[in-house]
């Protein structure tokens, strides 16, 4: 099952999104929150992200969900630190972090492969809420 990492500037945001996503997840599914800095400040930390990716890793790989700006830069940096064979199984989703995470978790929970989970996460960009 594809693992999911949630990277936000805020630990509360990452934790909160994880909490919402867990409602839709299988019990054995890995969803790891990587929010904020080690000292509790707001920000993103490439080391924390790379550890979260390792924690979330499965044979099927990992999707990383990101919020703003440096969340992407820190995740890219985290990938550079990681082992090459791990890195090959990680994708960063270009998607709204909350809706994308929910979509990714549901897709992953049925055992879909990495690229399909990525596509579903990114599909959240087009989802309408108020019709």
């Amino acid at each position, binding site marked *: 099952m594809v693992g999911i990492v949630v990277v936000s*500037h805020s630990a509360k945001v990452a934790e909160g999104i994880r909490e919402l996503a867990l409602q839709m997840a299988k019990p054995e599914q890995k969803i790891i929150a990587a929010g904020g*800095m*080690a*000292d509790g*400040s*707001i*920000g*993103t*930390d*490439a*080391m*924390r992200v790379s550890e979260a990716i390792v924690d979330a890793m499965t044979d099927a790989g990992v999707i990383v969900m990101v919020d*703003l*700006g*440096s969340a992407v*830069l*820190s995740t*890219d*940096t985290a990938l*550079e630190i990681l082992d090459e064979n791990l890195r090959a199984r990680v994708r960063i989703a270009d998607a709204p972090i909350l809706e994308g995470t929910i979509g990714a978790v549901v897709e992953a929970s049925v055992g879909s492969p990495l690229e399909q989970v990525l596509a579903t996460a990114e599909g959240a960009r087009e989802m309408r809420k108020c019709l």
Partner: protein
Amino acid sequence: MSSFTVAALEAVADTIVQNKELLTSLDAAIGDADHGINMARGFEAVRVKIRAAAPGTDISGLLKLTGMTLISTVGGASGPLYGTAFMRAAAAAQGKATLDPDGITQIWSAALQGIKDRGKASRGEKTMLDAMEPAYEAFVEAVKAEKSLVESLDAACEAAKEGIEYTKTIIATKGRASYLGERSLGHQDPGATSSYLMLAALTEFCRSQQLGA
């Protein structure tokens, strides 16, 4: 050379910590008011790490330690950007026991490319690159003209300062300030300012050591 590198990095760290408020207030105008806080947190951690490093740690090792520390403690975009710059610098410094202007050029070039690769920005987008790249070019030019190290660094500082002025005239298209669009006009970029400050500190350090004066 090792204790020399530690002292140079400490000079850079000191200037960032001293300018914490300035950098934060610049970021308050066009960002999220944390650039000084981020950078000071990062360089305070760097100061501790490099002082604690094993005495024999070479230039490359110290630069790598600085880069790794920045990426995990700064927190904002400047963390992965400067962190990557120092890590690329470390790779370029490998095997170098001393630094001459040509060696510095190679290391600087690698660092600059690191910032571009990481941030996918180019000059004119109101970022640190608007100070860093013209500074690098002025340095290369001065070295080519057989100026001394300190003279070449002075030329680089001058170009970085002009770069800061230039950022006031353009609209941000990368980073937080890009959310402001036209409202970012008239303000100088915090990252360009921190780049200049680090460079100026390094220049003053070299001058105080009477390096190639």
